[in-house]
């Protein structure tokens, strides 16, 4: 069985105002408070296009390698729904802002490229809450705050073959939109929404019947829905029951998909060019400058870190998840020049503390300078690696320097030979039995004696020096 998957993703553009009016896009609990004649579809109101939405859409399309068209056109998509005030959605149809492009994904089948069909800009509808969501007695509650939010819709070719691949695609797309500041990419808050097309076929050369799945509110839901749908369609094919071309609804609780009530009549959206908006014309020199000023993309940076800095794939992925983390990493490496150590330390100790605190790196007091300082102290044996773990929380929470933190915790490593010799003589005098055993050839006893010395030094003795000094004294 071959599964073919295509995605349609709506990404909410991170603007201050809506797509066609000056209403704020701020998240607002109070319903119907970010509204105006335009987004309420009041008679006589007209749309005006948000320049920033166009800029962000152009930016993401360029990063995705799309052909960004100098001229694109808005159209009206006509249908009646209570959360669609004008009875049409302003979108792009015949002439979208961008076509083509791709997103690389790492899969079991190796690194692959998921091709994009097109990307177009459009306005969101309002939000309807149905009887299913809350007890309303067969009523629907409508909030128009979301109505007119700026979206870019990205449509992929059917280039994915499993739920994991779709998950990977979405993860990479989300990483990119956040990386470029185009969107928060927050799927739970609806800033990224995804519809899925799944078809299963016994013949790899032929596509099966395309089934659309809606109501996917998280990456995990996308994967679960695909996994379920793959299995359901395969079962249908095995049983000889036909797979219908239909739209199915994903049930989060059950983990299943169910057919949505078939739409009355067939959809006939009667698209036609939006007469209220002349063509959108982009400046070719600005497009060119956007291309040349595009920052290194997360997946490009990730492979560079693996290739040039020798990072482990896991570390490289983690470091390039967020642009701020990657920048932090690069600044730290510039100060202490041990990329592998920095990456692994960020991936373990730093990540652990961030996790405990529920914070992102930029929300703490840790800076590339303090982290580099800490790692340099470890490298120069000024403190032990173990001791550094006690220092890190202070750097994160108080913003103090590593030197001060180490001093205040009394963690300076003792590398003074005479001090260690003093401890060593005491240990030898107090452990006659073990000393005899060592001298009798039982080398392993040295570890016990080192441990005794460390105890005496409150762990501050440099472990390497301790071993060497003990050995010399025992043999003399």
């Amino acid at each position, binding site marked *: 069985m071959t599964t073919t998957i295509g995605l349609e993703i709506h990404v909410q553009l991170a*603007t*201050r*105002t809506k797509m066609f*009016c*000056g*209403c*704020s896009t701020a998240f607002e609990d*109070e*319903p*119907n*408070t*970010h*509204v*105006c*004649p335009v*987004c*309420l579809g*009041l008679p006589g109101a007209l749309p*005006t*296009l*948000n*320049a*920033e*939405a166009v800029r962000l859409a152009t930016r993401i399309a360029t990063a995705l390698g799309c052909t960004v068209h100098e*001229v694109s*056109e808005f159209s009206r998509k*006509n*249908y*009646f*729904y*209570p*959360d669609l005030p004008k009875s049409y959605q302003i979108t792009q149809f015949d002439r979208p802002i961008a076509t083509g492009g791709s997103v690389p994904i790492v899969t079991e089948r190796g690194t692959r490229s998921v091709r994009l069909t097109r990307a177009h800009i459009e306005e969101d*509808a309002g939000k*309807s809450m*149905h*009887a299913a969501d809350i007890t309303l007695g*067969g*009523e*629907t*509650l*409508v*909030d*128009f705050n979301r109505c007119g939010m700026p979206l870019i819709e990205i449509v992929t070719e059917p280039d994915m073959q499993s739920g994991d691949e779709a998950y990977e695609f979405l993860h990479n797309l989300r990483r990119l939109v956040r990386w470029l500041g185009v969107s928060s990419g927050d799927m739970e808050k609806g800033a990224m929404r995804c519809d899925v097309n799944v078809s299963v076929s016994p013949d790899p050369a032929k596509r099966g019947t395309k089934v659309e799945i*809606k109501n996917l509110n998280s990456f995990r839901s996308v994967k679960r829905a695909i996994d379920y749908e793959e299995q359901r369609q395969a079962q249908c094919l095995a049983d000889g029951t036909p797979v219908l071309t239909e*739209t199915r*609804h994903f049930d989060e609780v059950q983990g299943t998909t169910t057919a*949505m*009530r*078939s*739409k*009355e*009549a067939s*959809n*006939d959206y*009667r698209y036609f*060019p939006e007469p209220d908006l*002349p*063509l*959108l*014309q982009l400046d070719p020199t600005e497009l060119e400058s956007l291309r040349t000023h595009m920052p290194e993309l997360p997946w490009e940076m990730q492979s560079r870190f693996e290739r040039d800095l020798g990072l482990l794939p896991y570390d490289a992925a983690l470091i390039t998840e967020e642009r701020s983390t990657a920048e932090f990493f690069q600044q730290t490496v510039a100060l202490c020049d041990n990329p592998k150590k920095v990456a692994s330390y960020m991936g373990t100790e730093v990540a652990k503390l961030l996790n405990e605190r529920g914070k992102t790196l930029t929300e703490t007091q840790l800076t590339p300078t303090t982290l580099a300082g800490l790692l340099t102290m470890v490298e120069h044996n000024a403190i032990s690696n173990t001791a550094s773990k006690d220092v890190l929380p202070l750097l994160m929470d108080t913003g103090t320097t590593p030197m001060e933190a180490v001093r205040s915790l009394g963690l300076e490593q003792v590398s003074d030979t005479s001090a260690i010799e003093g401890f060593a003589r005491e240990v030898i005098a107090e452990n006659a039995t073990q000393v005899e055993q060592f001298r009798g050839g039982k080398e392993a006893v040295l570890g016990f004696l080192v441990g005794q010395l460390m105890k005496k030094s409150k762990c501050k003795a440099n472990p390497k020096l301790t071993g060497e000094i003990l050995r010399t004294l025992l043999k003399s």
Partner: protein
Amino acid sequence: MATIIDKVTLEHVASLARLEITPEEEEPLLGDLERILGHVAQLSSVDTSAIVSKRPAMTELRPDDPREGLTREEGLGGAPAMRDGFVVVRNVMGGEDE
């Protein structure tokens, strides 16, 4: 000449436009529409193969600066039903696209 619009098409179009056509309205309406559409259908004889659309482009876009909108009362004071700040409508049947 073949009929342009028949009863079935009229009903389909009416349902798309959310208009109800009563049985009494249907006959005269069909007659009017047939004649009007017949008249406008004469355009099919115009050769437009060489025509290039010259729609203008937008000269300026709106800066992304928030502007004061309407209060809920100003914007939705005339809505037939409101509750807790929401507009209330009858249950929505089926699933049109969002």
